[in-house]
């Protein structure tokens, strides 16, 4: 007979691992989230699985005003990755609050709202508008945006600029909402930016945003993307993302990390967790596999159970243990699977 995988039908037998995770002050039921810009505001994916099953739903970065985004083509498929140059198309904060966030709150999802701006003032106003918004569980500050007041210099590439944005947002947002700064890998020293953000009050860090890349159409002999360059994402960048999580966790072991970049399976998610992530976002993989977030969650739970973990949190950063250190009670490295 033919084998079928149909949505919703599989309430995966969840192994008995405590999957809850604390991100700064807040506890989430599990560590698997969507990634900003890869799940819109959750409604479309909710057709495929119950989005409240996820730890959180990270929304597409929202700006103050409605925004058309860039011209097309906006994407190019690349080996094990893709380039995108959307240009932060979105409805603006007002419509977002009215429709998207309201829907998420109604639905009972934990909304992680990503905000983006062109100036410190933009970010501050966004945080202002989001203060006390129902359904808001966490704020992610997308600082991979050009600073219109500084010749388009990207905030995330300059410790001072990053710090100003984060500090303004942290001061504006109520203390109960964790504020995460999202780091760009396109810097010489990601730990320097990480430190600047944390010193400025970031409660945690999202690691990583896309890498700057481009593709050239060898037929038209011009750049493929209307925006010329774009952001590279997907499994291709996973080794860079894992390295960034590792470095940031090593530099700032007490700061919670939301890790992402090319996660396709529970095994991939575990790689980020062992490197130091307290939660993960599944991004580009959703485009090829809409059910990926819940699948990754089930696979991660299984992988943890297989290794003898009783609590997800025991796995966070475990790959940093010194060479001959014993594993915590329970976990065992997996031997030859044969």
């Amino acid at each position: 007979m033919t084998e079928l995988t149909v949505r919703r039908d599989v309430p995966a037998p969840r192994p008995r691992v405590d999957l809850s995770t604390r991100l700064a002050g807040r506890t989430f039921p599990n560590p698997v989230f969507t990634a900003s810009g890869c799940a819109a505001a959750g409604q479309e994916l909710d057709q495929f699985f119950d989005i409240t099953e996820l730890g959180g739903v990270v929304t597409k970065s929202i700006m103050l005003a409605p925004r058309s985004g860039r011209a097309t083509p906006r994407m190019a498929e690349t080996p094990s990755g893709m380039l995108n140059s959307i240009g932060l198309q979105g409805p603006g904060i007002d419509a977002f609050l009215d429709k998207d966030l309201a829907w998420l709150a109604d639905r009972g999802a934990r909304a992680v709202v990503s905000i983006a701006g062109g100036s410190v003032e933009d970010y501050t106003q966004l945080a202002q508008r989001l203060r006390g918004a129902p359904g808001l569980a966490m704020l992610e500050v997308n600082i991979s945006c050009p600073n219109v007041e500084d010749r388009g210099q990207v905030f995330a590439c300059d410790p001072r600029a990053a710090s100003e944005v984060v500090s303004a947002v942290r001061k504006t947002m109520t203390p109960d909402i964790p504020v995460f700064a999202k780091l760009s890998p396109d810097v010489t020293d990601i730990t320097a930016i990480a430190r600047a953000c944390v010193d400025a009050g970031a409660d945690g860090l999202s690691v990583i945003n896309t890498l700057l890349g481009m593709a050239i159409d060898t037929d038209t002999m011009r750049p493929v993307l209307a925006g010329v360059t774009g952001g590279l994402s997907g499994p291709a960048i996973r080794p860079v993302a894992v390295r960034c999580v590792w470095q940031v966790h090593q530099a700032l072991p007490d700061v919670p990390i939301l890790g992402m970049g090319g996660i396709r399976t529970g095994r991939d998610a575990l790689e980020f967790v062992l490197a130091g992530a307290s939660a993960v976002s599944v991004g580009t993989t959703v485009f090829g596999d809409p059910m990926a977030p819940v699948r990754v969650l089930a696979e991660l739970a299984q992988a943890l159970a297989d290794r003898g973990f009783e609590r997800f949190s025991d796995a966070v950063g475990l790959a940093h243990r010194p060479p001959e250190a014993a594993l915590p009670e329970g976990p065992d490295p997996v031997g030859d699977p044969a």
Partner: protein
Amino acid sequence: MPVQVLGEILSIRKVGAYQAVTVVAPGIAELYRPGHFVAVQVGGPESSMLLRRAFAIYDVQSRGVYGGTVQFVFSVHGKGTEWLSHRKPQDKIDVVGPLGKPFRLPTTPVRATLVGGGYGSAPLLPLAVALRERGCTVDFVLGAGSADKLFGQLDAKRLAGVIAVTTDDGSAGERGRVSDVLPQVLERTNSDVVYACGPMAMLRAVTEIATARGITAQVAVEESMACGIGVCMTCVLPVRGEDDVTRMVRSCVEGPVFLGDRVRWDDVGTVPADALGAPTGGH
């Protein structure tokens, strides 16, 4: 509500320059309406290709031993369709569907002209069936580069009052483009409405011809898509809304079928300056 199904290929056969694939996919047939499409994973588990490929649905069966099947027609374009062309019966593929907004059907029995370019005629054949079930009269204009790229001519003949065929090289029907013969067909049939699917340039020409006659054209566009389900924002084009405001709308969820005269054809591939949220000086 679309479903994601890993289904077995029942058959894959050559039809002229194309291949038609039938795959077991329960849950799609039940919700299907003409104009819907599916998005298919390509390349297998260790593939370097991450994104789905979109194909218009040509046929569905909701019953039978397989509990539901869906058929689509494709031509080899790049790496993903190349891979697809090597699939064999019993191989499995992962299909998401039905996706998109289908063609809207008239509530009264009108006369409709269906214009298909290349494989674009595939979704028009089930549309013709649906229209006839509502008592409409259907006429077809089919065009392609060459005879082997015409799809569904026989089916169309069975379903249609009038059928006109064009090919760029004259290897079948009249030499030329569908837009060359469409005015005469509309004249002759006095159609109330036009439906079209095919290359963007064709859709634009069809829209202009229909609009010039004061009738509406519903067109199914083909924009490059990364997700097909509305979450990535790669598939946008400028469309004027009912409030007359132009927005960059997602062709995968707000389309692929649009009213032709709402699409800003001149501006496809750009962001018109008057679009909602268009860049103002600053960026």
